[in-house]
């Protein structure tokens, strides 16, 4: 434990009392043994990628039932010696973690940005796609605690770009996970552009200074190799400057669609046409632009049934003075931005948001929204007085009446302490039934926040394993019915920003001890239904009964 983390932990204790909230966060980074510092490689050249990383992930790499942690890292630019790699922390099942990076074969130097976890070869062990500035890397999990770099073998080699978020999904429903990689702009150190605020010193450029770059879609052939179908599928768009991607079923036809958040360019909503191609319907669906017709600086994105209407809404984090977007889908297939009415807009006006995720922090059956913030420019306070470089994260508690309340300052654990945050993931690492939070900061530490229920709310956790569907069941939709209503949650990779949350679904049951019905719609098209499911953790293998975990 460093002196800094010890002090931070000690300072956080008095704040951890959170009267009125049914849950409590505590900063357990230090006690969990996570000692990480992001290396953006910044040395004064002000290269654009320095401002945007890194991502993080909760996943169970050794399949022992306990979530492990991956923290992506950048590295120094050529000619500079401060080397660094991503970090893999194995869960010791007692609240602490052990750094197993080297043993797992992940001490690979690369300018890492984000991560997407998915069992692309359906062998039961989660594999790793780490996006980077340069060559992205695909690491296959050999099931014995090691990852093998199969980038070239899988056909993903020879592709250099400024990649950001990525997402695994089975767009052709063949049972194998395909890969969507977001790319930001055409950038390389050799072709860096000089931008300046004061006309003398170099500062970070805004994305307008660079050409856009298309996202990539790689189809999994099922034999461990991928085919680039970017052009063929209609995903290709050389104007995009993509940072975040979320999986959703916009038209509710059972085929996965994609929402891609673009920075200063219109967002894209790729509707799956079920024939291997996609159609961008973002303008028609009114998510391309803000309500006043501007392309905002979209960063992170998540899609979920936050109002328990059975229809997935969308949250997008944007630049400061642009407000977050909270889209609700209308009957006519168009979204409307309800951020202002929901109270999220005004609260996020001066925040520059990155990672965002819908999750049920208090297990009351309503999805809350966490968004982490931090500016890209250290000198921002000189330019805009109301905006800081380090910014408080938002923790919007869902009131259930269409409005949200930011309770970050009451959540405890120093959660609201300003940070230059980027990545955000959630997962129940301590298996107490409540989703915990993992944050990364730019050129700073990572934060692990343990979530503890105070009011006795219970949850139903569901770990799905596909047989006919992809093994991770990514794209599966589960519905839980209680006398209070129905909740629907989707198994998804991607979402947030550069990060990956656990694939296990959490349903809040409040004070109830069971759900009357549980319906699972598998990506293969199969549906399963269970009655009277008690609170607790379950595993469901496609086509088989529920088993307690």
């Amino acid at each position, binding site marked *: 434990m460093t002196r800094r983390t010890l002090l931070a932990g000690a300072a956080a204790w008095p704040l951890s009392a959170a009267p009125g909230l049914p849950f409590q966060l505590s900063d357990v980074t230090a006690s969990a043994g996570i000692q990480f510092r992001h290396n953006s490689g910044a040395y004064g050249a002000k290269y654009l990628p320095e401002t945007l990383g890194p991502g993080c992930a909760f996943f169970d790499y050794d399949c022992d039932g306990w979530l492990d942690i991956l923290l992506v890292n950048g590295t120094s630019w050529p000619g500079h010696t401060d080397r660094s790699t991503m970090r893999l922390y194995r869960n010791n099942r007692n609240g602490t973690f052990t750094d197993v990076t080297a043993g797992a074969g992940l001490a690979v130097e690369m300018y890492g940005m984000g991560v997407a976890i998915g069992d692309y070869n359906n062998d039961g062990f989660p594999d790793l796609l780490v996006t980077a500035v340069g060559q992205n890397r695909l690491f296959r999990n050999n099931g014995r605690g090691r990852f093998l770099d199969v980038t070239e073998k899988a056909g993903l080699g020879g592709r250099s770009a400024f990649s950001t978020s990525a997402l695994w999904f089975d767009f052709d429903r063949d049972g194998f996970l395909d890969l969507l990689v977001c790319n930001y702009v055409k950038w390389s150190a050799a072709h860096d552009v000089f931008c300046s605020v004061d006309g003398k010193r170099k500062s970070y450029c805004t994305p307008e200074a660079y050409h856009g770059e298309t996202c990539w879609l790689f189809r999994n052939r099922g034999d461990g190799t991928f085919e680039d179908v970017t052009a063929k599928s209609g995903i290709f768009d050389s104007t995009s400057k993509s940072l975040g991607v979320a999986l959703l079923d916009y038209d509710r036809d059972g085929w996965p669609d994609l929402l891609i958040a673009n920075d200063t360019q219109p967002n894209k909503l790729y509707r799956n046409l079920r024939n291997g191609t996609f*159609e961008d319907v973002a303008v028609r669906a009114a998510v391309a632009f803000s309500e006043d017709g501007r392309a905002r600086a979209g960063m992170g994105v998540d899609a979920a049934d936050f109002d328990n209407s059975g229809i997935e809404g969308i949250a997008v984090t944007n630049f400061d003075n642009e407000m977050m977007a909270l889209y609700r889908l209308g009957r006519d297939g168009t979204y409307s931005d309800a951020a202002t009415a929901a109270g999220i807009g005004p609260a996020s006006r001066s925040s520059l948001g990155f990672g965002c995720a819908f999750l049920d922090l208090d297990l009351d059956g309503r999805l809350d929204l966490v968004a982490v913030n931090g500016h890209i420019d250290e000198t921002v306070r000189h330019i805009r007085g109301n905006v800081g470089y380090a910014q408080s994260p938002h923790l919007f508690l869902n009131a259930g009446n269409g409005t949200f309340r930011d309770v970050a300052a009451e959540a405890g654990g120093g959660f609201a302490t300003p940070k230059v945050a980027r990545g955000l993931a959630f997962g129940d690492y301590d298996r107490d039934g409540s989703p915990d939070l993992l944050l990364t900061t730019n050129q700073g530490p990572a934060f692990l926040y343990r979530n503890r229920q105070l009011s006795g709310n219970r949850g139903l956790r569901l770990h799905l394993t596909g047989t006919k569907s992809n093994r991770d069941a990514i794209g599966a939709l589960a519905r839980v019915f209680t006398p209070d209503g129905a909740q629907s949650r989707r198994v998804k990779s991607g979402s947030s920003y550069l990060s990956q949350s656990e694939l296990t679904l959490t349903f809040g049951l409040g004070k109830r001890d069971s759900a009357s019905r549980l319906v699972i719609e598998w990506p293969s098209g199969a549906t399963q239904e269970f009655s009277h499911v008690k609170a607790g953790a379950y595993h469901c293998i496609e086509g088989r009964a529920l088993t307690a975990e």
Partner: protein
Amino acid sequence: MSTYRSPTFRLLAGLSVTLTAVALYSGYTIAQLRGLERLQTGIVDRNRADSLLLLRIQNDLNSLGLTMRDMLDGSEPYRITAWRGQTRRIRTDLEDGLAREAAVSPLGRTSEQRTYLTDSMRQFWDALDRVFALSQNGQEAEACNLIRLSLQARQQALSTTVSRLLVQNNESEQQAAARIRQVYAGVTNNVYLFLAAMLVLILLTSVYLVHYNRRIFDEVAVLSARRSELAQQLISLQENSFASISRDLHDDFGQILTAVGAMLQRAGRHPSASDTLRTDLREVQEIVQATLDKVRMLSHALHPVVLDEIGFEGALEQYLPVFERQTGIEVRYRKTGEARELDHAVSIHLYRVLQEALNNIVRHSHARVAEVRIHYLPEAVVLEVEDQGIGFSNDPASGMGLVSMRERASLVSGRLELENGASGGARVRLTVPVAAQDVHA
């Protein structure tokens, strides 16, 4: 009294003129506003809407330009067909923009211009389709050549055309703005004219009303003076008549009745008269005496001879005990200053005012005590009659008695004040200046 024509007709005529002017001006303003509205919707708004759509079209054309640049720069590992989706999106927006633009294009747009734009666009899409077809067939180099030789030139020509249309719109918008400014200037001038005309009308009406009012007031003053003169003549006539009747009663009937009384007394003393006769004569004598007393009283009432004989003060001192006896109201009399002889006319009017004031006390005040004060001041004589009754009502000046008092005061150039005293009772004060005491007869 001269007669004047009523101003109503003239005022009504003025009002009609004003209303007609307002109506005419309102009509003019509405017509101007409608003209402005037509100008605005017909040219300015339409131009603005068209310019916005032209900007949208220009933006799409620029996107096409950038897309073609990306197609040619060879940085993507994909065939040119990869851009099919991207160009389709731009085409959808462009065609929508062109259709909307055609609907709102300014009235001055020629059909040649419209045809040129649609034909050029169609040719562009045809060429783009050929580019994709070549790429589809693996002829990437030919496709790139076609972009360079044909598509980029067409895109630039289209972009120039749209720019010219935007310039045209700007020019006609500027012309419309100049016309609008003219209309505004015209309307502003007319507003000033209208305001000036209204001011002149208001001024004329005011002058007319002031002039007419002044004439009315003069007339009223003359009428008032005449009425006052008449009243004073009436009072003088009454006093003269009363004095004459009083003298007759006192001198003639008094002498006769005194003589009759003396004769009856003498007859009663005659030795031949029987006791019965004597008794009858005594009774007749008493009746004669009573008649004489009444005649004297009547004579005194009509014109207090004592005024002529012993002056105002003496008359006052005789009258007040009689008043007390007759009415039961206690009178407290006080005199200040050095008494002096008053003019006869002044005396009679002072005496009458005093009588009237005391009679008013009997009739209205419900008072049991009255105070009479006479002050001989160097410059005036002041008579005050005050009671401790209920005082004057809100309008003490009404009633014939008070009118008569006022006129009498006026006859002696005096000032009559009617007010409530400190105790709340009524107070009548008559001030007669010294100068007046020798003037009025």
